[in-house]
């Protein structure tokens, strides 16, 4: 939980696997990379057991590459596809019971504030639509009502993909799935409006078709959560298995959904807007000086 944790003790550099030495020397710890440099630095997550063509795996890759301070971040996940890759990353990961991710994150963030009063420690929940909007709905909403300082990212694949294809609250109306043959009878939950009403200070909806915009959104959500209150990102991460999307059409599908009902939305309170303007102007000025 600090750069000390990613310093190899004297004499053991020769005994560490090369992957770890590379993580320390060429990884993201203590450095800031642009998402467009992906592939030229050692990433926090590499091998993972997710399905070929999984768009959630791509989202998670960009998510880790976008963390502002990976050495001071804890990721919380739950049952679902995302945790398969999240748990293999070189960032501390906590597996919450199904539905209680935001309750765990609330306690963890408060404990970190007490333990490290002078340092910002980021807590990020990355869970699926089932974990956050169905089974974990109550705990998600109450963490927002309490204005807890952490980021919630919903990787929405619109189905319970791990268990064979049951419909979730985020499945679109009329969609038939393997375990829901009659088709969904209700509308998709409007998660971003719920988040706004529940007290989130930064809310975004994104189909990860544009990595630069996605990275900026993730960074903003984490920075806003540090100072102002809960933040929420609703990301479309299709399940190519349950929705039978051919691997090569996954990105095409995301672009299509972006045009249909997943257009990019970014909403924030005035104070958050002011904060971003301030830090982004400072960065621009620094760049101009250079």
């Amino acid at each position, binding site marked *: 939980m600090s750069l000390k944790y990613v310093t190899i003790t004297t004499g053991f550099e020769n005994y*560490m*696997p090369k992957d770890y030495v590379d993580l320390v020397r060429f990884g993201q710890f203590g450095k800031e990379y642009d998402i467009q440099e992906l*592939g030229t630095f050692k990433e926090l997550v590499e091998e993972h057991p997710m399905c070929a063509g999984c768009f959630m795996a791509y989202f998670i890759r960009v998510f880790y590459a976008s963390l502002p301070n990976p050495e001071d971040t804890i990721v919380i996940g739950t049952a679902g596809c995302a945790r398969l890759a999240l748990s293999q990353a070189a960032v501390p990961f906590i597996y919450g019971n199904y539905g209680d991710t935001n309750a765990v994150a609330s306690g963890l963030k408060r404990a970190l504030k007490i333990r490290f009063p002078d340092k910002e420690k980021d807590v990020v929940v990355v869970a699926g639509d089932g974990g956050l909007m169905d089974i974990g709905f109550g705990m998600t909403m109450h963490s927002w009502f309490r204005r807890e300082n952490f980021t919630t990212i919903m990787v929405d694949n619109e189905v319970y993909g791990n268990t064979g294809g049951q419909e979730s609250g985020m499945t679109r109306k009329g969609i038939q799935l393997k375990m829901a043959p009659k088709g969904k009878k209700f509308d998709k939950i409007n998660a971003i409006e719920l988040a706004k009403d529940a007290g989130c200070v930064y809310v975004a909806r994104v189909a990860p078709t544009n990595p630069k915009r996605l990275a900026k959104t993730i960074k903003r959500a984490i920075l806003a959560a540090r100072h102002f209150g809960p933040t929420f990102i609703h990301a479309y991460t299709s399940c190519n298995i349950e929705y039978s999307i051919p691997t090569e059409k996954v990105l095409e599908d995301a672009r299509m959904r972006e045009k249909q009902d997943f257009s990019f939305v970014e909403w924030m309170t005035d104070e958050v807007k002011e904060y971003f303007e301030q830090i982004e102007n400072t960065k621009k000025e620094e760049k101009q000086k250079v």
Partner: protein
Amino acid sequence: MKVLIGPEGYIPKAAAMEGVQLPSQPDKGLLYGEEVDEEVAMREAARALLTRQNPTIFPGPKILWGWSPSAFEQAEAILELAKEIPNCRIIPMPDYRPKYPKIDPEAEINPNHPNLTILHNKIEACIFVGVHCHYANLSLRMIRAGTNCFTIAICGELGHEEAHATIRDADGAKIRRFKDILIEEREKLGIKWEPKLPPPNPSLPKENWETISFHDYGEYAFLLLPKKGEIITDSE
């Protein structure tokens, strides 16, 4: 109950459930599940390291990462100990995350399937040091279940009932004391050995991150970051 050298078979009962208790005093240790003076445990552990095949040290995150000054001190002491064990190897356990598809058993040990590293390298005596207690116990029981390895736990806390020999409250000084006892036992056994460091980690070199650029990915570069309007028709 005696904690015997395995293989004990699939899912042996936890030693704690069989009545094995942790050493009661800082100067006590456990040997085959029974409380003995620390020195007795150290001598038996030293003999196992000197007489059994492929002795190996498995340092854990508390030794490998510089999270506190004590980590540096213990790391130095462990390297001093490794120099004195004939034909010793160091195989690290840098963290506890699950690895998929699988680990390289010559380069690292993972607490979720430690038996892979033990069996692959034919290790018959090993030291666990700097591994957080819950993961050490998990790994030690798995090793006892599936291998014939003699396990030694050098623990900074209260010790491990799952190990065949355990030393508790270990710090740099205690590790150095163990080293001195090992040298004495080595001389008693008449083994001649010049102190030298174990061979480095054999993990294969991968990408050269000092020179790599986006263009090195050649025709596959588009898989990293698709351009606007570009449709991927090819995949791995």
